[in-house]
């Protein structure tokens, strides 16, 4: 016995680690998820810089920097451990920046970013506790304060014209133009006005818009920085799906709903309503479907909940675009659906395999 215990004592001298099972973990971390989202956005970032040059750089850099610094300051003031390393502030910064018009001055961007992080996220207690998508909170704030600046759309610099001033100097003028969806909205309004005044122009109001979807697909249109190229978002979105960073439920539900509703109204009256391709490629819908609505913190937990969430966003977007006061609607649709996420979580709670037993 003595000899025995000696031996085991020798091995016990080695301090063994004790912890709760499971003792293995999948490689993914929250940080990695965030950085995969950033990678997914890179095509759109590159495209925006290609199209809007220094305009894009200024907006994106000030947005990201302001987000990170705001988070840092909040943590520092509240004496919390620093969380800026988890990458979520960078994601918020990029999404906010990409949803802004290229001509927005840097100080407005910074203001929006501070509100996004401060009001949208940190006052709730930081990552994971916020109810609304922080980037959308920041954008909503800017919309409310600087409505004019927020709806002034510059066309991509590549198409800008250089004019020669009287004194012989050359100057690049940023030409502004309504976005395709803005034009689509105008078409609906014009048709409604004409109907009210009993004018029958016998014309196709949407002829200008309908042809634009190819440009919209590539990005050659006016709009917010990231709104322009559908292709880039598709590439990024597929990357996220492929990496399993997001699941297909929300993007599919949003895109299917938008296609469905826009196809119906378009088939009913193609003269007044823009075709589904315009609705799918415009107004940052792709960005929303893959990158904004899928923000894990503010979307429902269960798959069923996510599907309903996506359908809700798609339906609200179309409601706003077709009857509401704004041409795009993504931002309000996301914020509205964010607010019902807790309810959706309750309603779509999965039933355990074998049924719900509860406290009995």
């Amino acid at each position, binding site marked *: *016995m003595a*000899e*025995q*215990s000696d*031996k*085991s004592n020798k*091995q*016990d001298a*080695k301090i*063994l*680690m*004790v*912890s*709760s*099972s*499971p*003792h*293995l*973990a*999948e490689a*993914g*971390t*929250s940080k*990695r*998820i965030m950085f995969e989202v950033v990678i997914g956005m890179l095509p759109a970032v590159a495209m925006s810089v290609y199209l809007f040059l220094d305009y894009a750089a200024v907006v994106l850099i000030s947005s990201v920097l302001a987000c990170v610094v705001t988070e840092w300051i909040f943590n520092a003031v509240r004496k919390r451990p620093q*969380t800026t390393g*988890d990458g*979520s502030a960078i994601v918020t910064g990029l999404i906010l920046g990409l949803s802004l018009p290229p001509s927005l001055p840097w100080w407005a961007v910074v203001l929006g970013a501070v509100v996004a992080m401060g009001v949208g996220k940190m006052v709730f207690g*930081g*990552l*994971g*506790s916020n109810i609304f998508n922080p980037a959308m909170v920041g954008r909503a704030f800017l919309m409310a304060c600087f409505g004019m600046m927020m709806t002034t759309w510059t066309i991509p610099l590549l198409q800008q014209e250089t004019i020669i001033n009287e004194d012989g100097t050359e100057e690049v003028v940023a030409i502004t133009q309504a976005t395709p969806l803005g034009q689509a909205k105008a078409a609906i309004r014009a048709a409604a006005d004409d109907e009210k005044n009993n004018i029958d122009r016998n014309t196709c109001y949407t002829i200008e818009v309908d042809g634009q979807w190819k440009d919209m697909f590539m990005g050659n249109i006016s709009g917010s920085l990231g709104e322009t190229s559908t292709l880039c978002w598709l590439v990024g979105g597929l990357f996220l799906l492929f990496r399993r960073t997001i*699941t297909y439920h929300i993007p599919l539900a949003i895109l299917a709903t938008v296609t469905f509703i826009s196809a119906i109204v378009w088939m009913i009256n193609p003269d007044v309503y823009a075709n589904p391709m315009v609705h799918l490629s415009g107004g940052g819908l792709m960005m929303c479907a893959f990158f904004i609505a899928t923000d*894990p*913190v*503010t*979307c*429902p*937990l*269960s*798959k069923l909940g*996510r599907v309903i969430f996506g359908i809700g966003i798609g339906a609200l977007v179309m409601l706003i675009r077709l009857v509401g006061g704004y041409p795009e609607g993504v931002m309000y649709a996301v914020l509205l659906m964010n607010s019902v996420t807790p309810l959706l979580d309750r309603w779509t*709670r*999965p*039933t*355990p*395999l*074998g*049924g*719900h*037993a*509860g*406290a*009995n």
Partner: protein
Amino acid sequence: MAVTKSAKIIGKFTFKRGVHPPHRKKFSEDAGIRAVTLLAGSTVVVPMVQHIGAPNKPTVEKKQEVTAGQEIGSSEAFVSAPVHSPVNGVVQNVTAMNHPLGRKVLSVVISVGEQQPDQQQWKQFPADFDAQKYDSETIINATRQAGVVGQGGAAFPTAVKLKPNPEKPVDTILVNGCECEPYLTSDHRLMIEAPGPIVAGLQLAMRAAGATKGIIAIEDNKPDAINSILSCIKDTNQIQLAICKTKYPQGGEKQLINAVLKRVVPTGGLPLDVQVVVSNVGTLSSLAWAVVENRPVTQRIVTVTGAGVKSPGNFRVPVGMMLSDLLEQAGGLTDDAEKVLLGGPMMGPSTPTLDVPILKGTSGITVLTSGDIKRQQATACVRCGRCVDYCPLKLVPTRIAHAVKARDIEMALDYDLLACMECGCCSYVCPAQIPLLQYLRAGKQFARDIKK
């Protein structure tokens, strides 16, 4: 290796959700089972609790001589299983000793004597074996006498499981040969080296429970085991083989029943509620020897594996052998060994001491090294929903964990905390590295405390 074609194979099955941890079976899957003999003078510790149910009372006293296979603890209770001495020797003490559960449990400490009986052969089953010769009662009594308990981990007394219940008839015995835990290979090796007793045990179990069908389920990463079992069941009636996709926790009772039979065990219920009894391959092997030779359960197959042991392998170990002695048989721990698990990495608890005995339910010892263990700080839940998407029971682990953290046991129970089978999939996938299962276990403990 290709699987032999056979009409006995009834298809390929799987269940929803669950995870794909690395297999890590390479350490020991090709190592033949080696019998371990105890040195004279060494000690074995046989705890009175090795099963779910009432604890046994020691039936021997200090200084008493015992022989291998002699009953040394038993209980009158219906749900219990007696324990036997694995060796000839002398009872050194009857006292509370370290137990793998983490507390001290009344145990019989035996000092191993000089003269030991020869190793019993355990691979070849008598050729003239005929299950029809035994009736249900004989089988169940022999199973009980021999102290057979589930060897897959839960250690429920097998006789209790098989006893026919007129209200809940059983039509199928489902044999769990999945071994879905990473690292572990004891069932795998047993199926390759000794399929005969497993199949005989299945036939006996079917007779005992009155089941008309027997299905042996094996994961598709073990083609050699599949072939081995196939060659053994080709001349039997009523026994079939189900191949399951390799996924964790395929070997969970509810998952296995759901995959193979498409039946759903009600929450809080037993496989019996859907006319099924699930049994592990090792258990059936023990059962067969118990019935045919009255051989008590004093040995079991244990995988000793992981990067933290010098020579991993599969061992036939006397129940009661000290963990430290067994590790020595496997070459001892390496210098970077950090964590010793009683079982596999998904469900096995870690032990702070090597001074604990091997039990009837110990299927393996996994030793992880510092390189295997990535210590990560848990961060805030990002509500990604992965724990929900992968929980094989469709629970909402993040909600339950939050409720437990807030000490809101009502809420946790309402979210079916008690249904959790502690498989660990939720913790495994959580990108925020939140030890969800740990919270759930704590929650169950709170719930028990409140009840009291």
